Every structure is written in structure tokens, then in C-alpha cells.
């Protein structure tokens, strides 16, 4: 009985965050903001479903399910990389170095630093 409630609760949490993430994806005005919304869906949304699934296997079928941990691991590894590349594409398509906020160092955003410039800086640093 308790297990049922627990499983249901995680499923509800998962559903709510999944919905929020999707809603945010539609509603948020700016691409960089929109990048945030699906992360809720992937971490908490999918995470809730995975926990629910593990509990279900443990309490209802009396076996330990390993797959969910792997799914979580792969999500944690892939989601940030995907996000990074989407952000980079966005920078190159819609922004210029001037429209971006300053980086508070003397170097530009990494995506706008050419190979030659970076090599020069690193060389100078190694010479120190």
C-alpha cells in the first residue's frame, strides 16, 4: 500500500516536471532561456519516472532493476553536452561578440576565440 503511494507520488512528480519542461519550451521567449526548460524534464521528469520504475520492480516484482541507473547515467552525461552544443549554435547564428555580455576577462567567449588567438595567449602564459 505504502509502496503504491510512493510509486504514484514519483510518477506524479515526474509528470508535473515533464509538463513544466514542455510548457517552458513553448512559452519562454528567448532561445537561451528555452534551453533551461527541457533540463527540468530530463533531470526531474525522467528521474522521477526512473525511481518509480525501480520501486515498482523492487516492491511489486521483488527484483532489483539495474537499467534505470544506466539510463540516469547516460542522461547525466549526454544532456549537458547537448545543451552546450545548442548554446554554441545559438551564439553563432543569432549573436555577435558585441551583442554578448562581457566575459569580465580580457579574453572573449570561447566560441569566438580563434585557434590562433588562443595559441598566442597560451604560449605567452607558458613563457611566464
Amino acid at each position, binding site marked *: 500500500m505504502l509502496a503504491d503511494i510512493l510509486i504514484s507520488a514519483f510518477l506524479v512528480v515526474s509528470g508535473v516536471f515533464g509538463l513544466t519542461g514542455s510548457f517552458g519550451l513553448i512559452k519562454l521567449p528567448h532561445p537561451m532561456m528555452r534551453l533551461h526548460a527541457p533540463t527540468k524534464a530530463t533531470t526531474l521528469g525522467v528521474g522521477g519516472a526512473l525511481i518509480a520504475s525501480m520501486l515498482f520492480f523492487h516492491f511489486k516484482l521483488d527484483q532489483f532493476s539495474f537499467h534505470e541507473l544506466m539510463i540516469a547515467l547516460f542522461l547525466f*552525461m*549526454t544532456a549537458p*553536452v547537448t545543451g552546450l552544443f545548442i548554446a*554554441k549554435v545559438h551564439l553563432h547564428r543569432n549573436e555577435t561578440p558585441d551583442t554578448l555580455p562581457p566575459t569580465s576577462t580580457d579574453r572573449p567567449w*570561447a566560441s*569566438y*576565440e*580563434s585557434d590562433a588567438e588562443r595559441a598566442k595567449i597560451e604560449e605567452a602564459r607558458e613563457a611566464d
Partner: protein
Amino acid sequence: MPTMETAGSFLPIIAALPFLGALLPGLMIQAGRNTCTAFTLAPTVLALLLLLISAPAVMRGEVLLFRLDWLPALGLNVTFMLDGLGLLFAGLILGIGVLIILYARFYLSREDPMGQFFTYLLLFQGAMVGIVLSDNVLLLLIFWELTSLSSFLLIGYWKHLPEGRQGARMALVVTGLGGLSMIAGMLILGNVVGSYDLSVILTQKEAIQASPMYLPALILILGGAFTKSAQFPFHFWLPHAMAAPTPVSAYLHSATMVKAGLFLMARMWPVLAGTPEWFYLVATTGLVTMVIAAKIALYKDDLKALLAFSTVSHLGLITMLLGFGTKMAAVAAVFHIINHATFKAALFMTAGIVDHAAHARDIKRLGGLRRLMPVTFAIATVGALSMAGIPLLNGFLSKEMMLEEAAHTVWAHSHWVVPVLATLGAVFSVAYSFRYIVHVFLGPERTDYPSKPHDPEFGMWAAPGFLVVLVVAIGVAPVLAEPLVKATAASVTGGGLPDFHLKIWHGVTPALYMSAVAVAGGALLLAFHAPLMRLWLATPRPEAKTMFDAVTRAATLAGRGFTDSLHDGALSRYAGIFTVTVLGAGVFAWTGGASLPATRAPLPVALLPAVGWVLLMVATFALVAFHRNRLMALVLMGIVGLIVSLGFIYLSAPDLALTQISVEVVTIVLMLLALNFLPHRTPAESGPAKRFRDAVVSIAGGVAVAGLTYAILLRDFAAESISAFHLDKSYKGGGGTNVVNVILVDFRGFDTFGEIIVLGIAALVIFALTDAVLRGPGGRWLTSWDPVGDEAGDRHPLMMVVATRVMMPIALMVGVYIFLRGHNDPGGGFIAGLIVAIAFLMQYMASGFAWAESRQRVTYHVTIGFGVLIASLTGIGAWFAGRPFLTSDYGYITIPPLEKFEWATAMAFDTGVFLTVVGAVMLALNSLSSMARRTGETVNIFPMDINPARSDDDDDGEGEGEGGR
């Protein structure tokens, strides 16, 4: 005395020896020119010895046979036969072959690749021996085509000379086309008789000549024989083939290849000859060829051209004799084949010697060589006098017999046409033979030879010297050649020869008068050569080469026009034609046959498949709408691929689903790379009308496929499906419970074997194409290529690099797991190969291809090669167990700490599949990335562009945890 069985068993060895020997010279050239020559001589001499061992039985009148069933269902068997005719020709081919090899050793200069030459020569020799020994018509045709191919290589041996290349091409076109026509003729003949064995065909004279197909078969077969033997109007290729080195001319164009046509006519003589059709076709062609070619030969200044046309003329003479259809004419033909081979090969070699010594082949630049080259002069004189038909030399004997036969041949009720024309041919023949002596060797010595002429070393004149000894010996004592002529003529005519003796003096006969007229007339013609030559040069005549070039050009244009109208490189046209054709075939089948009534009720639509279907449809329509945006098209294709894999899972095909999804990943990554070099948008190249037409075609195609699928799904299979067999035998026979995998590596292992070879070849072709593109204008274009928009910095971000490094061992482990469980659960070598390839691909995406590749110790070519090799060895392993190729075996073993587990030879085969797949995918990736590097993309030294660990202090310059090379 060898029995017939054992003697017959030499035949395949004789035919195979030159082919096996052909491997040697190419290797042995490393050990020097003499060793190379010795290793070329060895197989030839050995084959000749085996032939001589078999000779006594044949001379007694036996026919040696060897039979091995190869493809009995097609009537194609390896059957060899040695009778008199075969013995004569095989003896000529191998005997003169030995002399030619000796001569070539001294003829070829240091710059010429000798190993290559001897390899070609042995290939040719093997093909010729194969022709004359074959008892099966189809086998004979195979060897026939092989002579065309190998002679192409020999004629074009001096690849740097345009004449050599063009001559080789012309010879190949003419003799190759003739070969095609002969194939058709022989197939008709085999059909009429009901067997493709010559020994059977040769007994069916009445059936063949009564058949309505006799004339077509005759014309087609003669097409092959006439082209090969350079009979008018196909004679033009032979003079152009003289661009070949002289040993080739002496061997192919006097003694052997051009005689293949004569051999064939002689071979088929018992069944084809004796009809008016045969007489008028063959005898007339021979007569016309003899006269025309002899006339042309007289006006050729090039020594080899003179000899070439004289060869054509003599071939015409022999053809004419065969065409007469009488037994004595056949005897004369056989005798002249022997005589012509001896004196003409010797003459060609002397022409080569003169060319070698004086650096000139033009008669105008020669003359007076008598004292400078006495030995060559002696050899050439004997040879040329024999060709002219002077008594006491062998040419005289057979020419007398020819004139004798011609004297009483009636052509279209006329008693004089053949004798007069034959005498005319003999007149020209005498004239050009005398010219060869008088204009080259006699006359005053000159001072302006391009090089100081001198007699060559012994090795070079030994071969022609030996041949002219034969010329004189047979000429003086024709009895020597009599047994061979009798044995050969007996097999040409099918027995029942009249009693005859070869002798010098026949008494005062018409032939003697004709001979005398010929010699006198020839001498007269030569005396007036200068004014006649001016007249010849002043008269316009058709130039064969320009006509040939025009015809081939027209044929090429027509062929290209036809091909281009169907397949012009535009995918849309290609797909359109394909779709319309398939639609047509489908409509034909649907309206022509009956279909069973529907026996199954449609299932209700469940929610999950419906969602998938909607996604599929949306992706497809979106693809149609946005296909001009290439990146978008790729994304949409990815969706389609994913849905298809899900569909496979839903329909319980996990193997297919795994394959589909991994193929999908690899394809999308490779296409993304390729997309880098393409415009971002597909330009609109066709107008609205064209697009409407294409839309109609594609919709019709799609609807038809959907309708057909629907119809099939509603019916049970018409025949019982093979699945039951597979399910039943999978575990018991193949030792695996995963039926799909057992089918791949066991039931249909041979298919898979072929497929991995194709995959490997495809990858190598991609590599070769890329390489060719980068060398050509494409490479220059890429070098100056400016990518659209500016490139991003930090292309190898830390996050991606670390993530892929962490995932690498996991991915490899998944690959191993999938591979190992493949035989019993979804998986196997193919899928595992794709997974491992993806694991590597990730590293390349993260750190750049060049960086990752320099950490790879085994090249992909080697990986592919090893894959195919392992698969082959596994297949061969079955032979040691006495079972057919690729039969698999399995069993169980227990290694103490582990549980009992299964082993299967299929596992080794699967390893081959695995390696090939990995190598092929990675090689394709390598090819594409080499394009990127050509555009000037830099090769990074570090695995990631920005590495916080590096900037803190001076480390070893590598990323964390990354071992350098």
C-alpha cells in the same frame, strides 16, 4: 607404353602449365633477366615434353581424352582431346613458343619490363593451348576470349606508344566482336546437336547440315574465325597490331593466334564443310584475301607491314584451301600451316634483327645489308625464297599443292576464275618475297643507316636459324613431315584420306606452269617496282584505320547517347525510370495473374503504433516540404530511421532494430560530415512541369507499394514459408538459439561472406574515389574553399571530450557483450562492429579525426583485410573436417572456475564480420575527413582546445588521463 587413360590425364596439365608458369616470370625478374627467361622456358618446355610423350599414340591414330564434370547442368565440362590436329597446333604453339622466348630474351632492351612481357606471353600461350586441346565448345570459347584479352596486353606492351595502344584496342575490338559472334554460332550448333562436346558434334554432320539453323550458325562461326585469322574485310587489324614488339608479331601474328581461326575452320571442317554455302563463303573470302593482301604487301615499305600483309595473304590461301572442301585441299592446307609457321616466324625474327641492328624498318632506308649482316642475310633469304615458293624449300611444296587444287576448282561454273586469281596471288607473293631480299640486303652498301648494322649475337639468330633449317629439311625431304601431315589431315577430314605422298617432283602438271608463271611474273613486277609504287601512291584507296575510328566513334556516341538518356547522373531521372519500370511490371503481373482472396482480418489499430505512424507521416511530409534545407532533411530522416527501429522492436525483431539504430547513427554522422562540403540548400533545378511529373510518379509508386503490402498482409503465404525450417534447425544444426544470427553465420553464411567482401570493397572504393578527387580539380577546389560563415572556436570542448572518454570503455564493453551473446540472443558481429565503430566515432567527433587517428596503431585497410581473411580461414577450416566450405560446428567446454559454455566456429566467422564492419565504417569516415583536412582545417595537438589543467601549470602537454603515443 602409357595407356589411354594415363596419357589423357596429361592433357589438363599441358593446358594448365603455361597458366601456372605465368606467375613465375613476374616474380623471377628480381633475380635477373636470364633467370626470368629460364623460368619462362621451364613450363613451356615441360608442357612440350608432356605433349611429345603423348604424341606416339596420336600418330598411331588414337584420340586421347580427358573428362571432368564441371557444370554438367549447363553442358559445360572440362574435357580435353588430343588428336592429330590438336597435336600439330599444340606442337606449333609450344615449340615456336620456346624459340620466341629465347629470341625475346635478346630482343627486349633493359628498359622493357621483361617479367611482365613473359607473364603475358605465357598467359597467351596457355589460352592458345587451351583452344587446341578443348573438347568442349564452351571451354573452347572461354580460351578463345582469353587469347583476345592476352593478345591485347601483348600488342599494347609498349604502353608509351600511341600506335601500340590503338593497335591493341583495334585488335581487341575486331577479334572480340568476332568471338561474340562465334559464341552465338557455337551455341546454335550445340543446340542442334544436343551436346557441347566437340567429339559428339563432329559425328553429327547430317543433322547439322540438314538443320535450318545451319546457315546462321555457319555465318556466325565464320565471323569468329575470319576476324581472328584476319580475313578480308576484317584483315585491317593485323597490320596495326604490328606496333607490338617483334617477338609478339612473330609468335601471335605468324605462328599462333591468327592461325586460331584456321584451326577452328579445320576443327569444324568435318561437319560444316562440303556444302555450297561453305565453299562460296570460305573459298571466296580466302581467295579475295590472298590476292588483295599480297598486292598491298608489295607496296609496303615497313618491313613488318610487308610481312603482316603477306601473312594475311597466306592465311587467305589456307582459308581458301579449307573452303574447297576436298580432302586433298585439306591436306594441302595442313601442310601449308606447318610451312608458313616455320618460314614466317623466321622472317619476322629477321625483320626484328634488322630493326635492332640498323634502327630502321623502312625499306627505303635499307639496302646493301648483305655484307654487313651475312648471317641474317642467309636466314632471311632462305625464309623469303620459301615464301616465294622456290623449289627445294618447304614453301614450294605446299604452294604447288595449292595451285594443283586451284587448277581444277570450278567457281560458279567458271573453270578459270580460281586458277587465274590464285596464280595472280602467287605472282604478288613472289614479288614481295623477292623484294624482301633485294631491297633490304642486295644493292649497294649505304652510308646513311641510322645505326651501323651488324649481325646480332648467337642467341638472337639461333631461333630463326633453327627454323630455316626446318624449312630446308622439309623442302628437301618432305617425307619428314609426312606422318604429321597425315595424322593431322586425318583428324581434319574425319578419316578416309586418299593415299598420297608428299614429294618434290609431280611431273609436268598445270601447277608447275602456274608456279613458273608466278616466279617470272613476280620478278618482272619487282623490276618495275619504282614506277608501280608511284602509281600505287597516286591512286586513292580506303584507309582502314580512319574508317574503323569513325565507326567506333559513332558506336561510342550512340552508346553514350542511349545511356545518357536513361542514366545521366541525375538521381531523379534514374529513380523515375526505375519506378515507372517497376510499376509497369507490377501492373502487368497484377492484371495478368489471379490473386487469392483475402484470408485475414485486419487487426484493430492500437495507440502505440498509431503514434508512430503519425510521427512517420509528419516526418515524411515535412521532408517533402523542407527537403531543400539539407540539415533539416537530415534531421527528419533521423526521425524516420528511429521510428523504423521502434517498429522493428514492436514487431519482435530486436536484431533488426539494433542494426537499424546503429546504422542510423553511423549514417547520420557520416552524412553530417559530407554535408559540410555541400551548399546548405538544394537549388531548385527543375521547373513546375517536371516537378509535377515527378510527384505523380512518386505518388503512384508509393501508393502501389502500400497497396501491395496491404494485399500481402491480408493473405496467407501462397507457399509454405521457410521460417519453420530455420526455427527447427537453428539450435540442432547451428548451435544457436538466435535464428537471425544462425541464418547469417550458418544457413546463409556464404551470402554473408560475399556481403562482407562487398562491404570491404565499397569502403576501399570510397577511399580510392576520395583520393582521386583530392588529386584532381576537386582537391584544388577544396584547397581554395572558403567555409560559409566564420568557424567556431573551441571546437573540441572539454565537456564533450571528457564525456566521450568516459563512455568509451562502456561502449566497447557493450560491443563485446552484444558480440558474445549474438549466437543465442539479439546481437552478433555486424551489430557489435557498428557499436564499436560508433565508440571510435565519438572520439573523433570530440577531439578531431587527425588527433584520434594518430593514436590508432592498426590502419583500417588492414582491419578490413583481416576481417575477410579470418572469415575465409574459418570457412576453409571446414575442409579439414572433410565438410563443405563454411560448414559450422559447435560444442561445449568447461573451464573450471566458469560454468559450462558453448563454443561455435560461427564465432570466428562472426569475428571476421565484426572486423570488416569496423574497418569499413572507419575507412569511410577517414575518407570524408581527409577532405576536411584538405580545406585547411587545422590538426589540433591537444585533445581539447581549452583545458583548465593545462593553463594552471606546465604539464606534459596532454589532457588528463590521456596517454601520449
